[in-house]
């Protein structure tokens, strides 16, 4: 077989496989995320064919797209290690492509940083990567970020909840503790939201607060405040993360290691004991894993 015939055969084979492997969309209803795989679009690798010709092998890559907060930075990690980042546009659209080399199962993670520098929770996507294909995950949406202005609120006062979400989207604020209540707020064009909520009517005690888009399971970080007899303002910026024993406002390997040191030991420090039951067990690790910052 001469070189030209061989090249034609390869091109025909590629075309045929493209037709057979036209984007097959699987919709994973819980997330409204779609995945597809198509033959890699720009062949870059070459190897020598047994007949002496040249074979172009489509490149392998993974692509992620979706909606983040307008003009936010979206970071991509692979197996927990930073790979690249992009900036979302004015409407929050983002698109990231990463070249790969092998067929394998890989854990990709994404997080977004809003214009005030607050991070979203990690979004993890364990993915089957197929060599020679572009594996494309679309429809990704980041849950809102959240801040509160007080760590303790006088029982007749109010607390201001703010953050960023998708542009012009209904956000539900959920307060739970001795009572549970929900409030709604609409994000602005730039994705920001802010609402002052009276705590009159809430019994004194500990409360947690988080936000989510209406009818969406994914939630923001969970913050904590107390309804009591005084008001304490705090530059909250997630400085009171459960498990953040070194108070660096980031949950990472250092905090995991501190928790691992106290694992199954008695009388652990309060910072490590996320659920306050005076033992460090799998539940505390689970809480830590929820707040993981990614880097």
């Amino acid at each position, binding site marked *: 077989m001469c070189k030209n015939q061989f090249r034609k055969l390869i091109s025909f084979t590629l075309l045929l496989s493209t037709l057979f492997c036209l984007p*097959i969309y*699987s919709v994973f209803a819980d997330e409204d995320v779609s995945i*597809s*795989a198509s033959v890699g679009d720009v062949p870059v690798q070459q190897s020598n064919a047994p007949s002496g010709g040249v074979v172009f092998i489509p490149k392998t890559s993974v692509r992620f797209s979706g909606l983040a907060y307008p003009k936010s930075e979206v970071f991509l990690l692979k197996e927990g290690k930073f790979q690249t980042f992009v900036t979302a546009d004015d409407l929050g659209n983002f698109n990231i492509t990463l070249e790969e080399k092998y067929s394998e199962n890989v854990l990709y993670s994404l997080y977004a940083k809003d214009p005030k520098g607050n991070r979203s929770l990690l979004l993890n996507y364990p993915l089957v990567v197929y060599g020679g294909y572009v594996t494309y995950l679309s429809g990704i949406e980041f849950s809102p970020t959240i801040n509160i202005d007080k760590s303790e609120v006088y029982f007749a006062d109010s607390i201001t909840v703010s953050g960023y979400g998708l542009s012009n989207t209904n956000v539900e604020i959920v307060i739970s503790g001795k009572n549970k209540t929900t409030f709604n707020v609409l994000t602005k064009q730039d994705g920001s939201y802010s609402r002052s909520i009276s705590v009159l009517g809430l019994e004194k005690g500990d409360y947690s607060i988080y936000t989510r888009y209406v009818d969406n399971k994914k939630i923001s970080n969970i913050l904590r405040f107390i309804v009591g007899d005084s008001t304490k303002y705090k530059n909250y910026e997630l400085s009171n993360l459960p498990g953040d024993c070194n108070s660096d406002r980031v949950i990472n390997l250092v905090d995991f290691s501190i928790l*691992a*040191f106290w694992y199954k030991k008695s009388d652990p420090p309060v910072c490590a004991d996320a659920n306050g039951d005076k033992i460090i067990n799998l539940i505390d690790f689970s809480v830590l*894993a929820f707040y993981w910052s990614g880097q």
Partner: protein
Amino acid sequence: MILFCLAGKAHAASVFIDTPNKSNTGEYFEVLVYADLDKESINSVDMSISYNSDLLLFSGYKNKDTFLKMWIDPPRAERDKVIFSGIIPGGVSGLFDANKKELAPLPLVKLIFKAKKTGKAEFVFQKSSLLKNDGLGTPLVHTEKGGVILITEKVGNTKVEEVTDGAEIFYTDKTPPLPFEIILIDSSLFSRTPPMIVFDTEDLDSGIKEYKMKVNDRDWSIVNSPLPIKLNFYPNTITIRAVDYYDNYKDQTIIIPGFTSKYFRFSIAELIIMVILGGSLIAYILHKNKE
């Protein structure tokens, strides 16, 4: 373009073990532990799986193509059980595969066994905890399904290279663990957590069996990460050795600063001067009090 809609079939979450149907004595095979999460997101796993230790030898684990890698307790054999626990920061709800219509079960860990004697070997979950990624550590209710493998005698002329029914015939690991860092985590002044060193690496072929430590030129001792350390007056060199299940190893060292250089950051001469000045001040005050 073909658009598939999610099947919408309701099913409970489950964990299950995937084994080859059979293996021959003397050969190695891999056992995969899967979690089918019914679209719930989990971030923590704690499991104990019993096996027939008279028929099988636990020979390590592999991280490749699996997703439980941040170990609280890496896979190890304890009598007739393999136990392991770990976290997946940020949580996962299944495996995204473009060839499948819905989320596929998630491969958590790959365990390696060697077949010792003929017989029917069973893998049974003694304990399996899956905690949801909800910030509360809520347990995920799920069912369990073990696995069975038939161990048969290797028949005379069977070539070592011939592959049978999914079992690994020839297994070896000649590659050491991957290079790694040792990180020193300082202890703040009023913290009850002591200073520690943290280390973690992978072995692609058989998994990390143990870590050993040597301080300066002393003997090796088996250790775990995180490892509390004591600060001595002078700096110490600590060597950590990661050893895999085939006794390949990789070393890394760290120099732990001495107590003086860490806290006082003064030279010995400066310390002596300070002692003399301090002593003089005390003597002056006492003298003044006498007057």
